[in-house]
């Protein structure tokens, strides 16, 4: 199959997945709710965000951005710059290892593997399998030719995973550092390893966007970023840095955000509030109260019912204070304070929702890029990364292939 027909077939399947009556979609939603503890609406939003990026035009856009001429995957093509004839070859076999409970990357990873015409072997997390198997089921139904090159291992089958790794020329793995380090040891010397570790994202809003007329909208977008994958993803903001001296003080923004979260969560179902999460929130609230008693300026807003979300306004918050549906809002005066707070986490920075105006936004973006942030987006878009995004700061497909240069 040509790369164009592969992209077309996959794109068509994505359109089916975007149809709310598609049976496989319904099945995936049930799985995400029952096994991964997302709410129905979160699951829907996640699937929409995923398959909107996997349509034919988006896939072609990715191929063009990575290869300029995607047909290098089919035949020798003349490179217009050097005049050479080149051809790109995907790995014969890719082993994909997935972990954690954010399921979208597994489907993307397999789609990329299919675009470069590889055999794909996947192992999902035994604790949370996601819905990759359902996606492959739909592929078998609607694109049999593509489906035959994709295999899933039993999540608990370590032996087969190792055996597959040994036969692969590319291993793509998601997981914490410990998992990645262990896997690295198993990779054959000639094979290529791409590891995606755990990372942290945040928000940064400057004074000029904290205008009274903007604040409601900005708070709603922030609520969306926090809600969408239940604040579990590496693209979920844990802390929002807010510049002082704008029309709206950071403390006032916190209150507006709390109001918006309450509305957002009550109109779109949140993840089921477990008592464990409620206890975790209560513990943080207790700590806040003690600090209030000591005279510290710290405030919090909790959800009704409890345990769905918590907003904490805290000058002393660290980048990793949030999570588990707790958003920390940290006021600052100078950008360098933010950069200082980010410094210990430089190696782990992922995305930032940067809301600032004009050239100042560009200037701050430059500072953040130097620190290793690999995606700078708008508030409300954190959970909608384009397929062309340099995931973890690296090329997606061009890193996976090998080239043959043909001197005619």
């Amino acid at each position, binding site marked *: 199959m040509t790369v164009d027909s592969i992209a077309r077939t996959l794109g068509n399947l994505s359109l089916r997945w975007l149809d709310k009556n598609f049976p496989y979609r319904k099945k995936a939603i049930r799985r995400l709710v029952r096994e991964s503890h997302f709410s129905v609406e979160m699951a829907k939003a996640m699937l929409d965000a995923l398959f909107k990026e996997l349509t034919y035009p988006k896939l072609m856009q990715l191929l063009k951005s990575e290869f300029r001429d995607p047909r290098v995957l089919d035949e020798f093509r003349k490179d217009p710059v050097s005049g050479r004839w080149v051809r790109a070859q995907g790995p014969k076999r890719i082993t994909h290892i997935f972990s954690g409970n954010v399921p979208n990357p597994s489907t993307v990873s397999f789609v990329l593997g299919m675009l470069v015409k590889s055999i794909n072997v996947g192992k999902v997390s035994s604790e949370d399998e996601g819905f990759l198997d359902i996606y492959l089921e739909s592929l078998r139904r609607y694109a049999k030719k593509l489906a035959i090159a994709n295999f899933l291992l039993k999540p608990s089958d370590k032996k087969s995973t190792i055996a597959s790794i040994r036969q692969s020329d590319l291993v793509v793995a998601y997981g914490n*550092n410990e998992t990645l380090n262990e896997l690295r040891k198993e990779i054959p010397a000639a094979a290529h390893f791409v590891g995606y570790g755990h990372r942290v994202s945040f928000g940064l809003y400057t004074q000029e966007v904290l205008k009274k007329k903007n604040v409601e909208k900005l708070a709603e977008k922030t609520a969306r970023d926090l809600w969408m994958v239940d604040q579990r993803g590496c693209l979920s903001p844990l802390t929002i840095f807010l510049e002082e001296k704008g029309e709206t003080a950071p403390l006032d923004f916190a209150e507006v955000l709390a109001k918006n979260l309450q509305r957002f969560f009550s109109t779109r179902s949140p993840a089921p509030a477990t008592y464990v999460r409620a206890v975790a929130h209560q*513990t943080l609230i207790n700590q806040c109260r003690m*600090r209030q008693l000591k005279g510290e300026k710290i405030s919090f807003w909790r959800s009704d019912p409890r345990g769905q979300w918590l907003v904490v306004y805290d000058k002393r918050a660290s980048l990793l*204070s949030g999570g588990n549906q707790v958003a920390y809002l940290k006021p600052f005066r100078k950008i360098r304070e933010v950069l200082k707070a980010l410094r210990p986490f430089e190696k782990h920075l992922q995305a930032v929702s940067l809301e600032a105006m004009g050239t100042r936004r560009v200037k701050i973006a430059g500072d953040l890029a130097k620190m290793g942030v690999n995606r700078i987006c708008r508030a409300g878009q954190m959970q909608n990364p384009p397929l062309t995004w340099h995931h973890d700061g690296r090329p997606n497909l061009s890193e996976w292939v090998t080239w043959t240069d043909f001197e005619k």
Partner: protein
Amino acid sequence: MRPLDTETKKLDREILGFIREPDNQFQSLAFKIFEYQFNRNENYRKFCLMEKRQPGNLKSWKEIPAMPTVGFKELILSTFPIRNAVKTFKTSGTTMPAGPCLPVRQGQARETRGATVIRRGCPVESRGVHFFDTLKLYEAAIVPCFKKHLMPDSRGFSFFYLISSPEESPHSSLSYMVGVVNKVFAKNRGRYYVKNSKILYAALAKDLARCRKKALILSTTFSLKGFLDFLNSNKITLNLPKGSRLMETGGFKGRVKEVSKSELYTECEKRLGISKNFIVSEYGMTELSSQFYHGASGVMTGPPWIKTLVMDPRTGREAKKGSVGILRHFDLANRGSVLAVQTEDLGRLPADASVAGVLGEGFQLLGRAKDAELRGCSLSYEEFLNS
């Protein structure tokens, strides 16, 4: 030691009277202690005012504001100037409040009790402190409960402690309690098998093997597991004299791979010859003055001067019978600090009313809530520390 003032002495006499002969005056005594603490414990008063509660406007003891255990770490909670303290007990462990700070590795586990809290944020070495201006109430609360649960029928025990002595761990409330037991019940003849933070397994095994009298072993759950592992790996089986008893306390606190209570007790039966009916689990906290015991009945029960509510963290109200919640204790013996303490321990009132009815008050202890159970690929603090 500074003498106590008249009001304190009078209140202590009343509390001691209740401990010796409990009557139905729990609520009125609780209100008196609450008022005393409201007037004298400045940080608690501020907390109560924050909660909009004060003496005179409460309908039930259940409304007395409960201080979270983290308060013992962050604030001084004392009804007297702390320079007058005759004793301070400290909790173990590390806490991670939100705030900027440089990472500190998790502190060494110590043999004290109470909240080992691991939360996101940054870890700060911080231990809760409980101050005492007298230990009269504390000691009075220990003796009858211990006797009831560990020595209900007989005397004539030899005492073995897999816990460090009060001299070695002066700030451990557990060691202090063992010291009281040793004085009152063992005529100071019990032996300690934790020395310089080392557990003397071989010596204990040897002494137990030679023991002709009934043995009474007091141990932390952690040390007990270590001892059983020692016996296992050395293939030692001790058949302790009939009637020997064991008290274990503290749980595992995540230090080793946890085993279930029933597995642990089965091993005790096999290696020590102490049957399940003779093993009692104790639950105490540095922040409290009284203890709970869990015997064959299946629930933790406390003495009449301590009452416990199970609070539903989702509503902030009492949990329904049978549902999980966080435990809130009201301990009348806690006169010098705060009588109402909000823990982070999970528990449940038995769903079966008849069980609860027979036993009066009691709860099932379910341990600590696991933090952040839903975490995907977002970086956690623990992982950052290990990176």
